């Protein structure tokens, strides 16, 4: 049997790669020029879902690597009790919930953005957390207990930057005013809670339903067996 030599280019075209590179590099522009940046991100198609996925992946990797490689002076974690799936879910789930919840509310509130665009905006806003997070993780291993303030400072800086960028992104993508953005963001967070609640209710309902049929089956089985 003759095996074809598999080339990377047969999966990923050169054009796609250069577009991906360009859109990924655009995230660096966005974080310093949020208003222009997020406007052009969707309206001028200077961002891509591929780059957004990659940013989310980098953020996920950061959160996983932090478990192992942050100094225990900063985060004292019992690695024996870490469940990797829970850790992954705790990063991915809030991002997806935010996007879905935000899109659900903004479609009712004259938001111009589509789900894809909301996702892209949120993912691009993660950039400062990624850029600060990786060096900060390494830095933490060179700090004594008194110097942890530096770590906390950079960590908080990244967070604040992220929140500001998300707000800017929502403003530009939905073409909102600042007050409307803040209002819709609060609603979004409430919506996230509602979605989680419904999921939990749904889950318990389904499991109760299954248990019901299982017990019926068992009753019948006991009778005839």
């Amino acid at each position, binding site marked *: 049997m003759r095996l074809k030599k598999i080339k990377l280019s047969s999966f990923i075209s050169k054009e796609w790669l250069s577009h991906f590179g360009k859109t990924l590099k655009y995230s660096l522009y966005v974080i310093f020029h949020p208003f222009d940046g997020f406007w052009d991100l969707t309206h001028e198609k200077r961002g891509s879902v591929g780059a957004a996925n990659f940013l989310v992946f980098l953020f996920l990797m950061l959160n996983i690597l932090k478990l192992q490689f942050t100094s*225990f*002076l900063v985060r*004292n974690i*019992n690695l024996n*009790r870490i469940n990797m799936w829970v850790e992954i879910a705790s990063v991915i789930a809030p991002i997806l919930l935010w996007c879905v919840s935000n899109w659900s509310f903004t479609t009712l509130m004259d938001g111009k953005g589509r789900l894809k665009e909301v996702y892209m905006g949120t993912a691009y806003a993660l950039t400062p957390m990624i850029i600060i997070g990786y060096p900060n993780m390494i830095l933490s291993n*060179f700090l*004594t*207990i*008194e110097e942890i303030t530096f770590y906390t400072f950079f960590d908080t800086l990244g967070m604040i930057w992220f929140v500001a960028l998300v707000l800017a992104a929502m403003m530009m993508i939905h073409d909102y005013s600042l007050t409307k953005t803040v209002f819709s963001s609060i609603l979004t967070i409430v919506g996230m809670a509602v979605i989680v609640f419904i999921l939990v209710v749904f889950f318990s309902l389904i499991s109760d339903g299954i248990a019901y049929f299982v017990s019926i089956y068992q009753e019948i089985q006991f009778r005839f067996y």
Partner: protein
Amino acid sequence: MRKIKKFGSLLAATAIAVSGIFSFPSAAVYADDASTTYSYTYDIWGDVQSSPDAYRATKHISGDMFEFEDAEGKTVAKNFVEPQGQFIRGNHIFVCDTGNNRIVEIAYDGKEYKGVRQITEFTDKNGEALTLNKPYDIYVTENYEMIISDYGNERVLHVDKDCNVIKIMTTPAVTPFNDPVDARVFQPQKLIMDTAGRIYVQAEKINKGLLEFDTRGEFTQYVGASPVKFNMVDYIWRFFMTEKQIEAQPRFVPTEYNNVAIDSEGFMYVTMSVYDDNDFLTANPVRRLNSTGSDILVRNGNDPPCGDLKWDNAGGYNGPSRFYDVVTFDNNSYCTIDQTRGRIFAYDFQGNLLYAFGGIGNRLGYFRKPVAIDRMGDSLFVLDGQYSNITVFELTEFGTLINKALREYQNADYDKSAEYWNDVLRLNGNYDLAYIGVGRALLRQDKFAEAMEYFKAKRDRRNYSKAFEQYRKEQIEDHIGDFVKALIVILVGIWLIKKVRKIQKEVRECD
């Protein structure tokens, strides 16, 4: 062939591993059949780590081992009936046989326990005889004067060696004893005497602290009332309540103590057991009081000294540990006794849990309702109020090593201490304090990298940080020359490249 070889080596490795497992328990730990391994500690994550025994139960002492003459002159050996208190002075054990209204003095001569006398009667200054009614606790001074809390007769007796009354402390004329509406009965339970001859009494249902009596037997003051704890939510609710509703609410009152002990430095240790199940970490059930009555117990351990951190509903024994007595050692360690699960918890002077052992059961080394713990030298004597006997615990090699290591540490001989900690590690590889002790010695010997390893293993953040700071400094000092050299090379390199570029440019322009 290669496969067989591989299999062979695997087999050999397994054999070594297995033999390692079976040969590991060193002969010193399991030297006798009586040894059990029901001791444990909590690690940094709050998980139970089983440990070799630091104390081993060796003997039961019960009341019927001792014969005394009764009132009719007959020799009888009576069992204890619900004994509540004991005290050990020298090699004499004084047991308050509460149910039989007597005090039994037992002497230990190094081999055997012998009954010395039973005390039922005292002669007061007028030559009249006084008897006991439910004696609850006893304190014996160095010249064998006895202070007895005569619970049923609502008084505290101070008598000399030959049972002649020196003074009697009766109901003090203060609240809540002289309350015209709801006068409380003076029911003294546990007591101690300090070095100045003042007597401190813990009385039933009194939450103002301990009653202090001066050398003349006069009541002077309450000492060391437990601070009142507020519940914020309840406090806010009170603003919206009527007077009647507030009256119906439980009041914010300080909790009452249930026992008192005195340590070698003259500080009082008190225990208390009335607190909400969920507050066990903040309730401070064992306290060390100074002369003004404030709590000065050191709580530098991973968790405060509160007994068990985790439990499940095992046979109905649920909830946090409830301490009922405490005994102190000369090195400021102390043991507390818990009635929930019948366990003894030993803490060092910093509040680290050294070991915990015991349980509810009917074997040697288990209790039903431990009420008092005292020590004779290093041996522990635990009085059980329902089995009505005393269990004797003796220190094992493991416990001795821990005590030695702690003593050297307190004498600031860290290297010697580390030697003992290494011996402890040989017997128990899960003993967190030993790792930190060894790390501390390494730190003092300027072996920073090794010290860091030891501290990191047991997540001692503060010490790790100290070692790391030194290590970092050392590394920077060692390599600063290399840094400077590298920097110079880079700078010269950049300068050279620029120079070359410039020349190239000039050459090009010339062309």
